[in-house]
């Protein structure tokens, strides 16, 4: 059974042989892992079950002085945050799209590496990533506070902007669906530590109908829908399931009850994440990390779960804590890394257990 098969089982709510996993790390955290693993491909060392394809946050032109410009024209200051950065300019100064042209959703850079990556990691579950997939794209163009006030001041503009972003996304997704992918992984943060930024009423009025249209495009092609949406958003799960969501990330234990949600939604919604990145990983001991990891793996053994820290691991997490959860996931009974088996067979070595 390949990693891809295991994820399929989990998404269908069936009991897997072991709990699959897929981890991500910020650049600072990757530096620590690289120092530990030496000169190896981290993607191979981690044995992730999801294969990210496309480019979740897009492509950037280097402007120098730690500044980059994305394909939408947004300039990001990466002086402090090396992974994403902070928006420096305001593309849509007025509540209007006039004079603004969206970039080409079919830019070859989003797709050109898909065949070779599938060739190299064919045993993994293939997810085409589409970050900043609605609300986030809108506020990076318009400014967060402006967009939130536009919900009241300029509702027609908000609808128009969201529809334009969705059209861009759908065009890109349709192109991605021409490849042998399994799912589309959208990314759009709506939550705060407590509740939604815009509240459920505005979310349902402005965001939900557009999500339904985007998710429908993926489902019509027989593929799965994943969403990454930070914060306290579990009040939306029933709505999201109704429009075809299959898997939710990051599943933050500080803002939602991961154990009861896993039990309640098993068979309807799969969760990816769950290990505390706000408390246990940066501040806990190795034993704390092991305890929480074992609990999550036990909960996930019945299905409906892909194990991972709740967010990309930050650079303040001690290496020992990173290795603790990586090792426990990889040493689960029932798991054999097929890529290592193939390599061992090719080299006539003992098969790893």
């Amino acid at each position, binding site marked *: 059974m390949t990693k891809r098969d295991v994820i399929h089982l989990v998404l269908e709510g069936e009991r897997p042989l072991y709990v699959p996993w897929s981890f991500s790390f910020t650049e600072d955290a990757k530096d620590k892992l690289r120092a530990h693993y030496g000169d190896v491909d981290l993607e191979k060392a981690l044995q992730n079950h999801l294969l990210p394809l496309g480019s979740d946050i897009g492509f950037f032109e280097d402007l120098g002085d730690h500044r980059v410009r994305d394909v939408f024209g947004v300039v990001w*200051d990466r002086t*402090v*945050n090396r992974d994403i950065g*902070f928006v420096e300019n305001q593309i849509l100064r007025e509540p209007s799209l006039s004079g603004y042209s969206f970039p080409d959703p079919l830019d070859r850079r989003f797709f050109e590496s898909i065949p070779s990556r599938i060739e190299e990691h064919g045993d993994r579950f293939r997810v085409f990533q589409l970050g900043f997939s609605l609300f986030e794209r809108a506020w990076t163009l318009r400014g*967060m*506070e402006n967009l*939130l*006030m536009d*919900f*009241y*001041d300029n509702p027609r503009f908000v609808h128009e902007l969201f529809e334009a972003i969705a059209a861009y996304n759908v065009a890109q997704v349709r192109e991605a669906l021409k490849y042998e992918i399994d799912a589309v992984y959208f990314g759009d943060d709506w939550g*705060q*530590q*407590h*509740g*939604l*930024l*815009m*509240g459920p009423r*505005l979310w349902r009025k402005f965001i939900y109908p557009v999500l339904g249209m985007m998710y429908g495009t993926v489902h019509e092609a027989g593929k799965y829908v994943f969403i990454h949406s930070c914060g306290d958003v579990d009040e939306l799960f029933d709505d999201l399931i109704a429009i075809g969501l299959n898997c939710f990330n990051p599943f933050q234990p500080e803002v939602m009850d991961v154990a009861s949600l896993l039990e309640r939604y098993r068979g309807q919604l799969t969760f990816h994440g769950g290990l505390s*990145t*706000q*408390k246990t990983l*940066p*501040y806990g001991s190795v034993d704390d990390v092991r305890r929480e990891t074992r609990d999550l793996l036990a909960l996930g053994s019945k299905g409906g779960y892909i194990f991972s820290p709740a967010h990309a691991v*930050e*650079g*303040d997490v001690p290496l020992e804590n990173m290795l603790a959860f990586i090792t426990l996931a990889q040493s689960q009974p029932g798991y054999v890394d097929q890529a290592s088996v193939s390599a061992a067979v090719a080299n006539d070595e003992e098969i790893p257990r």
Partner: protein
Amino acid sequence: MSERVPAIAAAVVEGDTSTVKVLVQEALDGQDDPAGVLNEGLIAGMREVGRLFEEGEYFVPEMLVAARAMKEGLTILRPALVSADVKPVGKVLIGTVKGDLHDIGKNLVGMMLEGSGLEVEDLGTDVSPERFVEAVRSGGAGLLGLSALLTTTMPYIRTTIEALDEAGLRDGIKVIVGGAPVTEAFAREISADGYAPDASRAAALARSLIAP
């Protein structure tokens, strides 16, 4: 107090900037007491906004449009407040700590603090402990609000409080803390004077500490 004053509060709650501006001007023209317009109109409106936020009726957009209406009203009212020698109940410094550029939560706290009658000086984001110390030393503020969104930057809240201690300024100022990874337990551990989970409660906490 004329009936315009409760109508000002209601218009703030609705985020109706143009009505707030008209009513504040009418109140001043009608010889309403500027302090009453401030306390029973603008501040009372923002207090209700805070209550609705805490109860999950209001969210960030409603808070933003209400704060904008309050600010516009305050701009019209301010000269009259100065003439009547009505002073803010206290001054507050706020900022996001070193290494952290997140500002939405901190801005909301600033709006709610202003809406509760406090004078607010926003030091911005990525503020070093040295800059916080300098701002506290320059005087006038009774309370400092420190914000962090990331686990990687939260330690600078502690560093900033330690820097105030070392500068001999800690006893002269109350310090409150907040932000996604910040907890009540962390606030106690670093000897902050208070923690609030959201902007509305931060404003109530600040008032209770410096203008009880």
